[in-house]
């Protein structure tokens, strides 16, 4: 982060603190005003998000509980009351010190956070966090594989570009790329916003499902990775690769499919990937 960026953030923070204080004081007079609650939430959200972006991680962590309380108020799980506003104003007063890295020898911040957590515990009971099953390690692709993919019906309208995908796959060593035109309808039935073409190609040994998933990160597509003819590796679909934690497509993934035996794939691909009609 440059000094300029830090200065921009500090200037923005001054405005946000003024807005936050005004919002909290107005809530004392109008505790049921949801527009005020939303404004306080947005201010907190921006302080947290921008603070984290510019390296003020202690600030972002401190604001998290503060923001969560107002999110609960937004959802109706908590009501604005005198104690919440007292804690919120006290929390707001700690923000400049957190930005400047000032210590907290008296434990004021910890006491405020404990108070905010107690507020939440007194509201709606928090559901236990879902236990996520560990992602099984993917088998390394130590043999050539065959990739088939087809864009979803809305992918082009959402801005996906198949030529970028094909370029990235060529970068992984894709060869023998062929287009499947079997689903291209007569011209008068053609959906100009859809993509009726699918693609199939060979990928060299060493390219695994995680790399393919990376290629399709911003493309709403069905893809299928299977062993090249003569190999005996499992089939991997788009569901098999672990997602990137910080970026990704907005497509909601269907339930994970277990890797099917290679023989099943060789018996015949899904109807969407008919092997007829390929052209170079």
């Amino acid at each position, binding site marked *: 982060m440059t000094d300029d*960026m830090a200065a*921009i*953030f500090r*200037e*923005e923070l001054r405005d946000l603190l003024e807005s936050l204080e005004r919002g909290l004081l107005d809530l004392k007079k109008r505790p049921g005003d949801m527009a005020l609650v939303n*404004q306080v*939430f*947005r201010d907190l*959200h*921006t302080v*947290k*998000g*921008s603070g*984290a*972006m*510019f390296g003020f991680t202690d600030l*972002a962590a401190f604001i998290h509980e503060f923001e969560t309380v107002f999110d609960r108020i937004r959802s109706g799980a908590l009501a604005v009351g005198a104690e919440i506003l007292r804690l919120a104003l006290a929390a707001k007063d700690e923000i400049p010190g957190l930005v400047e890295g000032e210590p907290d020898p008296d434990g004021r911040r910890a006491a405020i956070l404990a108070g905010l957590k107690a507020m939440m515990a007194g509201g709606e009971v928090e559901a236990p966090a879902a236990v996520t099953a560990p992602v099984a390690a993917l088998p390394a692709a130590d043999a050539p594989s065959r990739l088939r993919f087809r864009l979803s019906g*809305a992918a*082009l*309208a*959402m*801005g*996906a*570009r198949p*030529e*970028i995908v094909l*370029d*990235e796959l060529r970068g992984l060593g894709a060869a023998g790329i062929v287009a499947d035109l079997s689903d291209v309808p007569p011209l008068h039935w053609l959906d100009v*916003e859809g993509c009726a073409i699918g693609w199939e190609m060979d990928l060299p040994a060493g390219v695994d499902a995680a790399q393919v998933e990376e290629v399709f*990160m*911003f*493309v*709403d597509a069905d893809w299928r990775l299977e062993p090249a003819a003569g190999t005996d590796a499992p089939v991997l679909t788009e569901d098999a690769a672990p997602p990137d*934690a*910080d*970026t*990704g*497509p*907005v*497509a*909601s993934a269907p339930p994970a499919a277990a890797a099917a035996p290679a023989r099943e794939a060789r018996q015949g691909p899904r109807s969407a990937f008919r092997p007829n009609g390929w052209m170079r």
Partner: protein
Amino acid sequence: MSKTVLTVDDSPSIRRMIAMTLEEAGYAVIEAVDGQDGLAKALAQPVDAIITDQNMPNLDGLGFIRALRQHPAGKGVPIVVLSTDSAEDLKAQAREAGALGWMVKPFTQDKLLAVIKKVLG
């Protein structure tokens, strides 16, 4: 000609960080302060990609995407949503609205460039 990215965020520091990063990489950047401003700017001139915050006053990110996709000029433009939240329901809503991808805050300048390069080629 350089490609143009519209960044929509109510945080001036986030907008500035995105703009500085992309401009240094050779992109032209247009800034908008919320969804309403973003909609007006996206319809006033062609843009190659859009990065939008979700939580904004006046019109939030999802509302902005839905409104933009109603216009012929707003179809086909890749949109990436910025959020501090990576909840699946938010992603599903963003997809339904017409977003191509999402990026969680905080993110690094390298990550931002990688995402834009991936979207624009």
